[in-house]
């Protein structure tokens, strides 16, 4: 099923019958049957008429609003019956320290392992490149996860692993591109800008998935509750960051689908409108591409895996059964 991205600033989306009409300067650009659309992602100043909004709600189309730069602003949520038993179980589990730390450990371990696999795959494809040091350091972190007894120490380990990983990750890009560490709000270089946008898109999907299953997206296990932060969506996203976004960004720059010239520098570094469209279409390609996953053992897509993991998490929360996080394919 199809995703609709609306990026054209100042465009108007209206509805007639069971179709959306996208207009720019009063000229219709396209007519799209609502039947064909599964999700809509709106960037910045795009005007949706009330008719269009109610049509989206009526069709149960998941609609996410992002700022032009990609920060999640909110979602359109239809009044549907919510899974109250799951929420109650979720609230109870977050008070259960044993359960919380157990789950958080698994998420962090999966994240570190995924980082390792990104490095190892790159090393396999580029025999002249090596980063033994980072691999060794990450393996050490992996070994100490089981000994972390508090969430704070676990988050510390995660941060430590992330900084090792990103310094190694930065060296995988061609020389004209500089990337030393993650910077956000604003991103300081094109790689950070691309990572930020990718993570935002993934985050938007994670929020949508956990919410529609019936979870309270604000209450997580690894991520501390914070005012207005969708911690559970962040938890779910950890399993997929490296596999989806980090690998996509690396490929796009190294294959010169994205170039440094595609970005404008001001207070931060931002995509040009045209390059953003290219990025969105590549991101969709990754989310929809079918592959045989080691995790499920059969053909799937990242979008289905994200759903599968959220359902798996719901099962764990309800029954206390073991949780197996997704780890990036080697």
């Amino acid at each position: 099923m199809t995703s609709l991205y609306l990026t054209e600033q100042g465009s108007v989306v209206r509805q007639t019958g069971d179709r959306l009409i996208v207009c720019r300067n009063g000229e219709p650009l396209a007519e799209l049957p609502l039947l064909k659309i599964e999700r809509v992602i709106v960037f910045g100043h795009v005007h949706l008429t009330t008719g269009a909004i109610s049509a989206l709600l009526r069709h149960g189309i998941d609609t996410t609003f992002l700022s032009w730069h990609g920060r999640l602003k909110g979602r359109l949520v239809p009044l549907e019956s919510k899974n109250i038993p799951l929420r109650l179980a979720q609230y109870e589990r977050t008070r259960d320290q044993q359960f919380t730390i157990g789950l958080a450990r698994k998420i962090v371990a999966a994240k570190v392992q995924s980082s390792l696999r990104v490095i190892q795959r790159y090393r396999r494809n580029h025999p002249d490149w090596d980063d033994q040091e980072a691999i060794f350091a990450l393996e050490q972190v992996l070994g100490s996860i089981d000994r972390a007894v508090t969430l704070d120490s676990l988050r510390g380990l995660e941060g430590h692993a992330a900084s090792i990983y990103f310094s190694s990750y930065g060296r995988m890009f061609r020389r004209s591109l500089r990337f030393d560490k993650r910077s956000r709000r604003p991103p300081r270089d094109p790689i950070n800008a691309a990572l930020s946008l990718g993570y935002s898109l993934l985050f938007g999907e994670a929020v949508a998935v956990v919410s529609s299953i019936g979870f309270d997206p604000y209450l997580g296990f690894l991520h501390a509750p914070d005012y207005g932060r969708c911690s559970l969506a962040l938890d779910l996203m950890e399993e997929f960051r490296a596999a989806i976004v980090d690998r996509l960004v690396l490929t796009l720059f190294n294959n010169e689908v994205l170039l440094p010239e595609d970005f404008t520098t001001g207070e931060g570094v931002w995509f040009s409108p045209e390059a953003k469209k290219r990025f969105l279409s590549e991101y969709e390609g990754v989310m929809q591409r079918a592959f045989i996953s080691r995790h499920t053992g059969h053909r799937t897509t990242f979008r289905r895996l994200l759903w599968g993991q959220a359902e798996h998490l719901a099962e764990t929360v309800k029954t206390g059964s073991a949780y197996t996080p997704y780890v990036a394919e080697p």
Partner: protein
Amino acid sequence: MPVKRVMFYIISYDISDNKRRAVICDILKDFGTRVQYSVFECLLTEDQFTVLFHRLRSEIDPATDSLRCYRLCQGCVDEILLAGRGDITTEPDVYIF
């Protein structure tokens, strides 16, 4: 997230009354792509097609109008030949505007 199989339908109509023709055309636009003046190509699941067909059937005048729906299997879709304007309707993965 269940995945439903989508089939390729060709729907053509011959309708005597202008107003009724406009109604039929409007319904079809909700479901597919207009490829010729009175021919649509629609990629639909069986359930979606059933809904569409019932809506169309309730609008026509059976005494004077005619409506034809053909369902093609994937093998037949691959064998479609075109001359002149237009493309074979495909299911887009993403729309970006």
